[in-house]
C-alpha cells in the first residue's frame, strides 16, 4: 500500500475544516524524521502534510510549521510547485492548527526544511503523476507521451494541452501511484527550488491585512494585562486595586496564581494580578495603577554583575571534564613555546520580537479554543490539557502569523495565562504583554563566562586548547537545580568546534539559574562562536600569523566527522565558505586608517558560515561599515529567502554585539524598553553581501540561525585590527575606546 494517499472526503472536512473539492492527497511523516510511515489501513490514515488541487486550478498546501519571518510557507510551497510543474500564481498556503497529526510542529532549530522537504517534493510529484494519468486516459495515449509544464499537461505527440484544473474530475478517480514509481526531478531541472521566489504573503504584509496574534478579534472578547512580580517566581502578598478599578474601561481585577509545571516538562506561567478591560490601553493603565506587595522569594538576592564575578572565579578553577575531550592538554602546555589565556563574557539577552507575547483564549466548559502566535502549538495544547484538565482533543490551538519569534514564542506561558483568565471570566480574552513585560519577564538567553587557554609551538601551530564554560542551562527552566550546561548545549559549538586540534579539553563549570532561561536565535552558538573565533584571532596575533591563514590551518586537512549522520561535518565545506568570504571581502587588502577587518567562522544547524566585517573606530565611535557572509546550507529552496535570512541574521548579530545586555539587581531585570535595550536601526545598518555556495546535491540544512554566531566575534576581531584593543566582554556600547 502506498504511503501517499487520497483522503476520505468526510475525514478531510472534519480534520482540516476545509471544503472537500478537487483532489486531496496527503501523507504522514513521523515527528523528526524524514521517512514516511507506512500505513496499512486507509480508515486510520491520518495525513500530516497535504495538498489540495481545486477545479479552478488553485493549489492549497497546509503549512504545519509556524511562520515567523523565516519564509517557511514560501519555501515549502516552492518544493510542491516545482515537482508538480505548477504555475506559482496558483499556489496558496493555509496554516495548520496545533495537532499531533501534523507530526512535530515545534518551529525551532532551523529544521523545518531539513525534515519535511522530501515528503513535500514526493507529494508534488505524486500529484503530477495523477494529472498525467488523467490526461493520458483522455487522449488515450501512454503516460510517457505526456508531460507537465506550467499548470498544463502536454500531449507530446500532438502538442495539445489541458489545464490542471480541467483534469481534476478524472484525476481524482485515479489510484495513487506506488511510492517506488515516484521519480523526483533532478537538480538541473528545478524551476523554483534554488531560484528566487517572492514570499507568498507579500500582499498581506504590505496592506496591514496579515493577522498576527494581537489582531485576533472575537465578538465580546476582553483585553487583559498582567502585573507580574519583578523577581522571578515571586508571589503576591497583598494588593489594592481601588485606583485601577476606577479607570474607564477596566472591568475586573483578578489574582492569578503561578502555574507550576511538573518537573521535566512544560513551562507553566508566572501568575500575578490581571486587569480585565474592554480595550488593551485601559488594561495597561489599570496595571500601572495597582499597588502590590510582593513576596520576592529566593531569587531576590540575585545580582547579575556579582554572578558574572562568581562565574569568572569558577572558570579559573578546574571544572567537570566533558566527553569528547582528547589528547593531553597539560603536556601540550608544558611543551609549548607559548601559552595564551583569555576570559570571555556574554551578558543575558532577550529576544524582543516586534510583536510582544500575546494570546487569545476562549474557555467554554469542556472545550478550549486558542488563537496565538506560537512556535510550538502542540506544547501549548499539552500545557492547556495539563493545567486545566481538559481532554486534549477538545483543545484547538490556531496558529496566527508570528510578528517575530526568535525562540521566545516556543514557550507558551502567555497562552496558559489567557486560558486561565478566560476560564475565570467566562468570556474570550486576549492577554497582551507590554514591551516592559516582555523585557522583564522573558525566558532569557543565558549569560556566560568562558576561560580559554591555548598553546602554540615554534611554528606557530596550535598544540593545545582548554576551554571552560559556565552558563546557566535552558534545562533549568523545566527541571530545577540543573546547574550545568547540558549535553545538547555543549554540542552547540563546544564539543564540535571545527578545529583539528590534537590536545583538546573541555570543562563544564557550575552556573545556577535565577531567571527563566530559554533559547534565542542560534542559542548556545552565540557563546561558542564568540569565544572560539575571538580566541583563534588572539592566537593568530600571538603567533604572528594572518588570521585568515591561521583559521584555515586550524580547520586543518580535509576530513569528515561522524560519517554515520545524515549531516556529517565536512572540513572542506568549512574551508570553502571561509575562502569565499576572504575573496569577496578582499580580506588582505589594507583598510583605510582607523578601519579594520575581522573574520569569523561557525558551523551550526549543520550549515557552514564565514563572515568578514569591516569597522571604523573614530573618536570612540564604532561604525560597522560592511559585512560579507558566505553560507553553505546544502540544497537551497529559495535563494532570495536565504539571502534575506542572512542579512537579517547580520542585523540581529550586530544588535547583540553593540547593545545586548540584560542586567539584574535585587532579582529584578533593570531594562525596560527599546530605549535601554537597544536595537540596530537603519542608521547603523552596513552594506551586506551574502554569497551562497552551490551545494544542491547536499541535504538542505539550517538557514534562519547560522548567520548570527559569527557576527559578534567578526566585529570584535575587526575592532582589534583597527585599534589593537581586544574586546572580551559584550556588548560594545559599554567599551570606552577613548582611553
Amino acid at each position: 500500500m502506498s504511503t501517499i494517499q487520497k483522503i476520505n472526503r468526510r475525514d478531510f472536512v472534519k480534520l482540516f475544516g476545509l471544503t472537500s473539492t478537487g483532489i486531496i492527497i496527503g501523507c504522514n511523516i513521523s515527528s523528526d524524521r524524514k521517512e514516511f510511515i507506512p500505513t496499512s489501513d486507509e480508515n486510520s490514515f491520518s495525513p500530516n502534510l497535504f495538498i489540495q488541487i481545486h477545479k479552478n486550478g488553485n493549489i492549497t498546501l497546509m503549512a504545519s510549521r509556524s511562520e515567523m519571518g523565516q519564509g517557511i510557507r514560501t519555501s515549502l510551497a516552492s518544493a510542491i510547485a516545482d515537482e508538480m510543474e505548477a504555475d506559482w500564481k496558483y499556489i496558496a498556503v493555509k496554516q495548520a492548527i496545533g495537532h499531533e497529526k501534523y507530526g512535530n510542529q515545534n518551529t525551532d532549530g532551523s529544521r523545518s526544511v531539513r525534515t519535511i522537504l522530501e515528503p513535500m517534493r514526493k507529494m508534488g510529484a505524486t500529484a503530477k503523476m495523477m494529472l498525467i494519468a488523467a490526461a493520458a486516459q483522455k487522449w488515450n495515449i501512454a503516460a510517457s507521451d505526456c508531460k507537465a509544464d506550467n499548470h498544463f499537461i502536454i500531449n507530446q505527440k500532438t502538442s495539445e494541452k489541458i489545464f490542471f484544473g480541467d483534469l481534476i474530475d478524472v484525476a481524482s478517480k485515479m489510484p495513487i501511484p506506488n511510492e517506488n514509481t515516484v521519480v523526483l526531478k533532478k537538480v538541473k531541472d528545478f524551476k523554483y527550488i534554488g531560484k528566487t521566489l517572492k514570499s507568498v504573503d507579500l500582499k498581506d504584509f504590505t496592506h496591514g491585512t496579515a493577522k498576527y496574534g494581537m489582531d485576533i478579534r472575537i465578538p465580546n472578547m476582553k483585553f487583559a494585562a498582567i502585573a507580574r512580580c519583578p523577581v522571578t517566581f515571586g508571589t503576591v502578598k497583598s494588593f489594592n486595586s481601588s485606583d485601577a478599578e476606577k479607570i474607564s474601561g477596566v472591568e475586573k481585577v483578578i489574582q492569578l496564581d503561578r502555574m507550576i509545571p511538573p518537573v521535566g516538562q512544560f513551562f507553566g506561567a508566572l501568575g500575578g494580578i490581571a486587569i480585565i478591560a474592554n480595550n488593551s490601553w485601559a488594561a495597561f493603565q489599570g496595571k500601572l495603577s495597582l499597588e502590590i506587595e510582593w513576596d520576592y522569594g529566593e531569587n531576590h538576592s540575585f545580582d547579575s554583575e556579582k554572578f558574572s564575578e562568581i562565574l569568572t572565579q569558577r572558570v579559573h578553577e578546574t571544572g567537570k571534564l566533558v566527553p569528547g575531550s582528547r589528547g593531553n592538554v597539560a603536556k601540550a602546555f608544558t611543551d609549548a613555546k607559548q601559552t595564551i589565556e583569555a576570559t570571555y563574557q556574554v551578558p543575558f539577552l532577550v529576544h524582543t520580537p516586534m510583536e510582544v507575547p500575546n494570546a487569545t483564549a476562549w474557555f467554554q466548559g469542556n472545550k478550549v479554543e486558542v488563537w496565538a502566535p506560537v512556535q510550538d502549538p502542540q506544547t501549548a495544547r499539552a500545557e492547556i490539557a495539563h493545567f486545566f484538565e481538559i481532554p486534549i482533543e477538545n483543545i484547538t490551538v490556531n496558529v496566527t502569523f508570528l510578528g517575530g519569534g526568535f525562540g521566545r514564542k516556543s514557550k507558551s506561558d502567555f497562552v496558559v495565562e489567557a486560558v486561565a483568565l478566560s476560564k475565570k471570566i467566562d468570556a474570550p480574552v486576549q492577554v497582551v504583554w507590554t514591551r516592559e513585560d516582555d523585557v522583564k519577564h522573558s525566558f532569557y538567553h543565558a549569560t556566560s563566562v568562558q576561560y580559554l587557554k591555548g598553546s602554540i609551538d615554534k611554528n606557530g601551530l596550535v598544540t593545545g586548547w582548554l576551554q571552560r564554560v559556565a552558563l546557566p542551562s535552558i534545562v533549568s527552566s523545566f527541571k530545577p537545580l540543573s546547574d550545568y550546561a547540558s549535553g545538547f548545549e555543549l554540542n552547540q559549538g563546544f564539543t564540535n568546534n571545527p578545529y583539528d586540534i590534537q590536545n583538546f579539553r573541555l570543562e563544564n563549570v557550575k552556573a545556577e539559574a535565577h531567571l527563566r532561561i530559554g533559547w534565542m536565535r542560534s542559542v548556545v552558538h552565540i557563546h561558542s562562536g564568540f569565544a572560539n573565533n575571538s580566541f583563534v584571532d588572539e592566537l593568530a596575533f600571538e603567533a604572528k600569523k594572518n588570521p585568515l591563514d591561521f583559521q584555515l590551518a586550524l580547520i586543518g586537512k580535509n576530513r569528515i566527522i561522524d560519517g554515520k549522520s545524515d549531516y556529517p561535518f565536512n572540513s572542506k565545506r568549512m574551508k570553502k565558505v571561509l575562502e569565499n568570504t576572504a575573496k569577496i571581502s578582499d580580506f588582505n587588502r589594507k583598510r583605510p586608517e582607523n578601519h579594520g577587518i575581522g573574520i569569523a567562522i561557525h558551523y551550526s544547524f549543520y550549515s557552514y558560515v564565514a563572515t568578514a566585517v569591516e569597522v571604523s573606530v573614530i573618536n570612540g565611535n564604532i561604525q560597522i561599515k560592511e559585512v560579507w557572509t558566505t553560507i553553505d546550507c546544502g540544497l537551497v529552496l529559495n535563494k532570495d529567502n536565504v539571502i534575506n535570512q542572512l542579512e537579517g541574521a547580520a542585523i540581529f548579530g550586530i544588535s547583540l554585539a553593540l547593545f545586548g545586555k540584560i542586567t539584574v539587581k535585587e532579582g529584578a531585570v533593570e531594562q525596560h524598553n527599546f530605549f535601554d535595550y537597544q536595537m540596530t536601526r537603519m542608521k547603523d545598518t552596513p552594506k551586506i553581501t551574502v554569497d551562497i555556495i552551490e551545494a544542491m546535491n547536499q541535504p538542505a540544512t539550517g538557514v534562519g540561525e547560522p548567520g548570527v554566531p559569527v557576527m559578534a566575534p567578526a566585529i570584535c576581531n575587526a575592532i582589534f585590527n583597527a585599534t589593537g584593543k581586544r574586546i572580551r566582554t559584550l556588548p560594545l556600547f559599554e567599551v570606552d575606546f577613548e582611553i
Partner: protein
Amino acid sequence: MKTNLSINGKRYQIDAPEEMPLLWLIRDVVGMTGTKFGCGVGQCGACSILVDGTLIKSCSMPFSFGIGKEITTIEGTTANLQILRESWQECNVPQCGYCQSGQLIAATFLLENNANPTDEDIDNAMSGNICRCGTYTRIRKAIHMAAAIKNQG
C-alpha cells in the same frame, strides 16, 4: 459622548476617553488592526500613521489630537504608499512582516516630502522604525526603487 474621527477618508463615530492613544483607538475601538503595537513609548515606529500628512507615532498621541484631522493608516491608500507597496513586493522586503505597516507609512512620509532621497535622508527618516528581523537593506533599496518609479512617471 460620540466624537467624529476620519480614518482613510471614512468617518467613524467614537465613544472613548480623549486621552486614549490613537493606536488603541484605531485597533481596539475602531477595530482596524493593520497599525501595530511594538513598544508603547514612541521608540519603535510600528504604530506609525499619518495625521493630516504628518508622521505620528500613534501609541504616544491621544485621541484628541486626531479629532478634526484626516488619519491615514496602512489600510489606506495614497499614491506614494501604493508605489512603495509595489517596490516593497519587488524587493521581497518583509520577513515576519509585523513592523512593515509602520515602515511603509514612514517611507510614505519621506517620499511625500523628498522625491529623491539619498541614503543619508533614508537613514534620518527611517531610523525611528525598528525591524527586529533586520530587513533594513531591503527597505533602503525599495525606497530608492519607489523614488525612481515615481520620477519616471
